């Protein structure tokens, strides 16, 4: 039996009109009289469905259209064209019955009141969402347990660290047990441990409550940890919608090693593909399986001041992977 999708998008587009500004005095004066307008297609005809209870990663570089899509899904932005339905509602109408069933978490933006303990911000949301007392208590207990909030709730939000604040932000947004959860870069700016904590929380929450989760990120690790299905967006267009494992195979084929060398001129081609080499700072691309071995050799052979191993940036991977694919 096929149930209707929680989120249904067909050919969704969003175009912004921006005034074009150039540098220089003459351009500034000209703009007083005649403003040049330019159309920017932030989202350009995307389509996908989300089944209830799915956790899907929405991946793409900065400016790809992820946040714009999320804002349209949560009713904050009106689409320019296309079809859009979430839980059967048209989000941009912002009907109260709809808003009660969704939530939006934005990394780097706070809704918690700064000077008071998080628990009191919770109370504020309880009043606004009209959450019955018994449900509220149950939800708060569950979230406190899952997110380890006990020591944090009594402290004023301004005294919390960035990671602790993010946990509370996520908690406050889930008090009303929304069926659909939109997360916009929730782990941005957090340290690795906290990122992992939040990822595992989202997975657990989805397991327990069956909420549909759409998570945007430009960190591959977020998506890897949470989503079987991933949608890749770039310049407003969908590049990929499918199983993560297939994508991972292309992504994780390589790693990037950035090494800062002391005074020496070495030929690094023996270690891997040299992407750049300037002022003693080299960027190498090596096969994932080779990473440990190459790193060891670099450290043994050369005067290394600093060395980091990174995933290739998404932009590079997307360019590579999809430039190679015949469309």
């Amino acid at each position, binding site marked *: 039996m096929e149930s209707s999708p929680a989120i249904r998008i067909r050919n969704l587009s*969003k175009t*912004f009109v921006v005034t074009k500004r150039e540098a220089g005095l003459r351009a500034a004066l000209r703009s007083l009289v005649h403003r040049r307008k330019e159309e920017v297609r932030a989202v350009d005809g995307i389509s996908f469905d989300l089944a209830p209870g799915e956790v899907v990663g929405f991946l793409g570089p900065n400016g790809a259209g992820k946040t714009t899509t999320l*804002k349209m899904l*949560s*009713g*904050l*932005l*009106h689409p*320019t064209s296309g079809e859009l339905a979430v839980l059967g509602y048209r989000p*941009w109408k*912002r009907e*109260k*019955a*709809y*808003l*009660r069933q*969704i*939530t*939006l978490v*934005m990394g780097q*933006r*706070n*809704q918690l*009141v*700064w*000077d*008071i*303990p998080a628990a*009191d*911000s919770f*109370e*504020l949301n309880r*009043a*606004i*969402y009209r959450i019955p007392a018994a449900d509220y208590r149950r939800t708060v207990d569950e979230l406190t347990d899952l997110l380890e909030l006990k020591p944090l709730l009594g402290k*004023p939000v301004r005294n919390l660290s960035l990671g602790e604040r993010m946990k509370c932000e996520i908690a406050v947004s889930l008090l009303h047990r929304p069926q659909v959860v939109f997360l916009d870069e929730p782990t941005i700016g957090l340290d690795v441990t906290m990122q992992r904590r939040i990822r595992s929380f989202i997975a657990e929450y989805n397991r327990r409550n069956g909420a549909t989760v759409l998570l945007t990120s430009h960190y591959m690790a977020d998506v890897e940890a949470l989503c079987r299905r991933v949608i890749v967006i770039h310049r407003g267009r969908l590049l990929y919608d499918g199983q993560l494992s297939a994508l991972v195979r292309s992504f994780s084929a390589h790693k990037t090693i950035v090494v800062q060398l002391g005074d020496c001129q070495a030929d690094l081609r023996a270690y891997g593909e040299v992407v750049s080499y300037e002022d003693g700072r080299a960027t190498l691309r090596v096969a994932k399986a080779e990473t440990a071995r190459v790193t060891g050799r670099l450290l043994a052979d050369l005067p290394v001041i600093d060395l980091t191993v990174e995933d290739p940036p998404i932009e590079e991977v997307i360019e590579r992977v999809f430039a190679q694919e015949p469309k």
Partner: protein
Amino acid sequence: MRVLRLLFVFVRVGVMSELAYRANFFVQLFESLLELGTALAGMAVIFSHTATLGGWRSDEILALVGVYFLVGGAIRLLIQPSMEQLIESVHEGTLDFTLIKPEDAQLLVSLQRVEIWKLTDIVLGFGVLAVALARLGARVGVRQAAAFAAALLAGGVIVYSFWLILATLSFWFIRVENILMIFQSMYEAGRWPVSLYPGWLRFFMTFLIPVAFATTIPAQALAGRLTWPTLLGAAALAGVLFIVSRLFWRAGIRHYSGASA
């Protein structure tokens, strides 16, 4: 009803935010007393040279001072902080959090910030009014009291709508905070009866930046000087402005959401 419940919740948040800064209460009290002292001393100097000011007796001017503090306190307690926060949230994008809540956004933004210590101004205003009423004595009956309440309500709605319209401008323009400063300066002029000012300024203070409705007209009601046409006019203006500000607010939200006009 719903509005009161939400107001209570936001007041609670406001109180809790400030409880950490108890010293601020004393600072506020000190400042308010100083401001009141200045106003009263200024009055004393003026009335040492004349018995009436533009036809107003000293007890009537005292009532005006009381209204000035009362209304000023109410504005600085709720209207001003909430509207300033609205402007900030438009620029920082945190307005999104408000828009995603299943509650009327205008209601939420209008109650969102309460500067609880400004209550001292309101209390002081009531105190001054009480003294003025004692002096006005027999001249204030039920009719005057009712007219006063109505004028205060109308004035409050007018000032709120005006501030909302100004704050809504921030959906289109960036440096709207500066315009708010004009209201501050003009409100100072409200300490004296509007009738003192030259015609063009009186017009400005009544219809462009509605200070007159906030202070002079309620004081007139208390002094028994308020005519029916004026009170009805104030009520009508309050109704019209409230509707206009709501429509403008909705237009602002549509613009913010990128809805095609």
